[in-house]
């Protein structure tokens, strides 16, 4: 009987914990307002909404919405875009969900689509055509066509200017995009990645184009790439130590990039996000790569 009593005690403590949770929740009851409440899933989509001046309508974002920096501070975060929780999403009371096609898991997306909340899938093509398309689509669903069209046109003209500049490049340089270095092994951006797309837009040849996707590669393979430039990614604050580390990899130490100390570090979402800042990112990259000075350059 002692054991049974102990079990009963455990049951009662579980019950008490539960009641506590209930109480907290009842206090945090929210009331829906008349203005649309947008849940933005995807860093590029959040960026577009801010650019269109719609930030007041956003109630929550996902954790990839790193730009503008106050998005994650001012709005609730519903977690990583590929690990959403159906009830978690419903708890922020959105009236419209604008999500990158990469959002998931699929069961949760299915449940949300059947919930009666407007759910918009935005396709994600990292290209000069994909970005304005994305902007117009977002503009259409939130009823800000004019602003979206203006922004899309601006982006299109920036891409066009970039194309003209690319034509002036006589001898394209070869670059390797290093996503991360783990255990002394570099993960590079191969063909079919956003990294590959941004390199090409910047008028650079992707030296790692033989690899498909983001893959860790051996030092021997890196030797073969022999890049003129190494592009690395920073997460927030600049990490010179990590950037310098890339050139000391045995596979890169003999490369032209190491000889001229040509390493460029850029913010991850800025270069890979393919939001409205994509042409600017490509332009910065181009400027940094084709700058005359052979010193280490850090783009904004």
């Amino acid at each position, binding site marked *: *009987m*002692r*054991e*049974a009593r102990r*079990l*009963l005690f*455990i*049951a009662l403590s*579980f*019950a008490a914990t*539960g009641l506590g*949770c*209930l109480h907290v*929740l*009842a206090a*945090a*009851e*929210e009331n829906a307002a008349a203005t649309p409440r947008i849940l933005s899933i995807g860093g590029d989509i959040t960026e577009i909404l801010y650019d269109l001046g719609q930030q007041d309508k956003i109630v*929550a974002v996902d*954790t990839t919405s790193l730009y503008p920096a106050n998005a994650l501070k001012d709005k*609730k*975060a*519903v*977690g*990583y875009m*590929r*690990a*959403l*929780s*159906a*009830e*978690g*999403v*419903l*708890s*922020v009371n959105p009236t419209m969900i604008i999500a990158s096609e*990469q959002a*998931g*898991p*699929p*069961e*949760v997306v*299915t*449940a949300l689509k*059947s*919930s*009666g909340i407007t759910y918009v899938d935005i396709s994600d093509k990292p290209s000069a055509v994909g970005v304005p398309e994305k902007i117009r689509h977002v503009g259409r669903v939130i009823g800000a066509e004019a602003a979206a069209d203006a922004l899309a046109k601006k982006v299109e003209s920036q891409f066009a200017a970039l194309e003209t500049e690319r034509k002036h490049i006589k001898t394209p340089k070869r670059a390797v995009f290093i*996503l991360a270095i783990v255990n002394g092994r570099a993960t590079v951006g191969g063909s079919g*990645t956003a990294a590959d797309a941004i390199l090409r837009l910047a008028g650079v040849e992707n030296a790692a184009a033989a690899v498909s*996707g*983001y*893959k*860790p590669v051996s030092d021997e393979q890196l030797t073969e790439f022999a890049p003129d430039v190494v592009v690395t990614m920073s997460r927030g604050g600049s990490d010179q130590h990590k950037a310098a580390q890339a050139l000391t990899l045995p596979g890169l130490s003999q490369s032209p990039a190491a000889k001229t100390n040509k390493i460029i570090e850029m913010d991850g979402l800025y270069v890979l996000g393919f939001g409205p800042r994509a042409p600017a990112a490509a332009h910065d990259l181009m400027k940094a790569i084709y700058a005359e000075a052979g010193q280490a350059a850090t783009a904004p």
Partner: protein
Amino acid sequence: MTTLDETRFAAQSAVRPKRGNVFIALSLLLAVIAVFSLAIGPTGISLQALPRAIAAALGYAPEGTAERDRLVLIDLRMPRTLLAAFVGAALATAGAMMQGLFRNPLADPGLIGVSAGAALAAVATIVLGNTVGAPIVSLLGIYALPVAAFFGGLITTIGLVAIAARRGQLAIGTLLLAGIAVGAFASSISGFLAYASDDRELRDLTLWSMGSLSGASWQKVLAVLPFAIALTFLVPRLTRALNGFLLGEAEALHLGIDTERTKRLTVVTTATAVGAAVAVAGVIGFVGLVVPHVMRLISGPDNRVVIPGSALLGAALVIFADIVARMAVRPAELPIGIVLALVGAPVFLHLVLKRGVGGWE
């Protein structure tokens, strides 16, 4: 048989709680936690909304708040609670059966290759689903992963039994070692596929391997229902025979137990239970290993109590962990595997240090 059970456990039953009391207490615990699982969630909708939600489900209520109540209570929390109960019961039962069959406190379903096989199939679905396997995966849609995981686990285990059986005899030692070999082989192929995956697939893989019930739906509940019914009928038929195995396989044979049939049935039942659980919730560790030990600490080594008790306690534990998983970082969600080990490991350690390793001394 009855004589064996009664004499073996007569001494302990004097100090152990009565079987009936244990089951009543565990059922109460499970019921209380299940009700809380229905009542608690990040939206703050409580059970008071249940009548409205039911009315909406039957088509009597007007649109608006009732529709949202229906969605949260009936389409999200109910299937989630039921699936958590099934997953917890299946994994804990499987663990108890494995520990009984191998007579080893560290035995878990991983030993018979089911986890590695299911994981391999899941990894293959995630990584090859966009390229080579696209026709099959698109045919099954969102069910491709669970279906693959279930059959991956079951086929691996059946293959293992075929490998380990010599002249119609399934030797436990051979099964154990062959299981390790097959598991290592399957894991290495999984590793190769993970290496070949891109960053997005890798993220999906990592999340899957930490387990989650956030994808729960009524379709999944219906899909596991036949397994739940089959296990409810099959498992109690094995508990007496597994009691015989406590003495050793030769002794069990002398007691008139069909040991060959027991071994095969136990292995296949375990693989089915684990395969179904992994299919709907991903990899959830800890439950299968720990819950049976906790049951032994409570009730002693009698498998007639340990195995059904593990099912009840496992169900309660996973539902509880799922409540924590969805509330701790709301509106986001934690993978349930993290919660289980984080909450469960210290509690288990405390029990072991205080009470000794029940039933294995």
